[in-house]
């Protein structure tokens, strides 16, 4: 039985339809008009216990609204959600005991008190025993260096420290299902790496994760499955591996030759590959279909016949694939 199941999940909102300027403001005051729009449109989503799922999409695609529907914050306009068998909105308090939520753009720390006070309050809220609390704080300290800013006022923390503290707040009760909405937003690379390592460890330990992020490195490092949402509807749902296998069908070799590269001559010599000039005069970019040729074959033929000074190998990133999915260039 899935830990989370959403069927035909839909959320409609009403927005003021107001013209700009003074006249628009006065007109709206006298004659209010609203426009309905659909933020989430008939989503079907099923997540098994222990899965780590990335939920991605462009800005305004409906990611955060979906998370709010799944966590019970919002009531769906249509459709159903069940998390561990419960309706998360109707049974909000019971559901909240079993989930952990991190909103990267909204802190759950009490702003004017030390981080430790926020964690202790959450300990009371979730009924965490003293022994479990100590053990979890020790673990967070080991993985997130929490100890260094536990006594600091939340408002004095750097963004990276704040996010680590917020993550500890979201996980202090050892939730079965964790929702992370943009957990690495605005963080520097070293803090991102540390958070990703922590999330990977959580996923390996069997915690069910739903992660939304614009940073696709988060997704590739932490998740096995990806759900791409666009305009409120699911555009792709499947393993990241499969997404890559399905859509990433070419690879690229950058060759650095001893002298200037003559692209037309090379293209004639190796007609099975696509050739293009590189950034440097001696650089040439070779693209081949990875389902026709193995990398070993390609490199073997190129190095034996051209004796390049250096080479590098690359493949389109998942970011490229998702960019093309957003743009509607790819279909499932």
């Amino acid at each position: 039985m899935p830990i989370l199941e959403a069927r035909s999940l839909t959320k409609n909102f009403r927005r003021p339809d107001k013209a700009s300027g003074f006249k628009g403001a006065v007109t709206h005051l006298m004659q209010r008009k609203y426009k309905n729009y659909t933020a989430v449109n008939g989503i079907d989503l099923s997540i098994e216990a222990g899965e780590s799922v990335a939920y991605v999409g462009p800005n305004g695609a409906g990611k955060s609204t979906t998370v709010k529907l799944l966590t019970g914050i919002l009531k769906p306009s249509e459709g159903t959600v069940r998390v561990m068998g419960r309706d998360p909105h109707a049974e909000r308090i019971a559901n909240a005991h079993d989930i952990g939520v991190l909103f990267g753009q909204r802190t759950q720390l009490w702003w004017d008190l030390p981080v430790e006070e926020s964690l202790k309050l959450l300990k009371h809220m979730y009924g965490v025993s003293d022994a479990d609390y100590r053990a979890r704080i020790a673990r967070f300290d080991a993985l997130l260096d929490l100890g260094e800013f536990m006594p600091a006022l939340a408002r004095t923390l750097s963004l990276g420290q704040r996010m680590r503290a917020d993550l500890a707040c979201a996980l202090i009760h050892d939730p079965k299902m964790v929702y992370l909405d943009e957990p690495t937003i605005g963080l520097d690379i070293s803090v991102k790496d540390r958070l990703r390592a922590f999330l990977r460890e959580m996923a390996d330990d069997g915690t069910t994760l739903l992660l939304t992020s614009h940073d696709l490195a988060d997704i590739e490092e932490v998740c096995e499955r990806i759900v791409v949402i666009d305009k409120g509807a699911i555009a792709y749902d499947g393993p990241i591996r499969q997404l890559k296998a399905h859509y990433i069908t070419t690879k690229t070799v950058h060759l650095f030759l001893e002298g200037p590269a003559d692209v037309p001559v090379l293209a004639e010599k190796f007609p099975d590959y696509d050739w293009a000039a590189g950034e440097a005069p001696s650089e040439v970019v070779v693209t081949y279909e990875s389902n026709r040729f193995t990398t070993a074959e390609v490199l073997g033929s190129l190095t034996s016949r051209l004796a390049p000074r250096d080479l590098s190998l690359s493949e389109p990133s998942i970011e490229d694939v998702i960019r093309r999915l957003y743009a509607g260039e790819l279909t499932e």
Partner: protein
Amino acid sequence: MASVDVALATISFKRKIAYKTTWVFSILFGGWSLLAGLAVWNHLIGDGELGGYDWPAMKAYLIIGFLTGTLAWAGSDWEMANRILDGLVAVDLTKPVDFQRARAAEYMGGMTASVPAAVLGTAAAVLIFQPAPPVSPLAGALTAFSLLFIFPLAFGISYLSILTCFVTQRYLGIQWAKDSMVAFFSGMMVPLALMPGWLQVLSWTMPFVHFTTTPASIYLGRVDTAGALGLIAAEAAWAVGLWAAGRLIWGGLVKKVTIHGG
């Protein structure tokens, strides 16, 4: 009271006293209002009386008004309102606590931070200005008991006012309206006895009257013991009624809540 309520109230208390300068300023400003009130009413009453208050009784009334005002204005309306306006209510709704009960614990914890200032200020004012004593020890005890209801009443009124933010998306005007209603209809600004009869009747139909007029009436013997118990029962009824109204409105709002942005 469950440990989570105590923990929320305690954290709110700590937040209030975290800003020590603001705390001290609020005490000084409260004291200044009392001094100004005493000067004005002394000038108006002189050796006579006004609305049934002679000068010692008016001093007692104003000191009770200082005490109740210090408590009533000590809640964290803006913190509650801002959580709705900024969308932080989303975070609150992911916690395994009843939303209204959690806000009540926080609000009353914040009010408790003003108790030392209210009690010390009142004690100092009593020593310095020598107001009329309570009409009887029982009246004094019933006055103290009636003052306890300021906590749930202040929360109930503030909670209903901040829930309007879901609709208005602004709190400033609502807060002004709420504060002026409390200040006027409680008798904090002018004793109800000095208002036209119809306004007095209107005031007694609202919960605000219990912030100052009720404790002062009990203290000064303007109502007998049965009347005092009746007023306390009315305070309790308002506290329950406001709580129920808050729950009813929240129940409707939470189904329609919209939180834009990530």
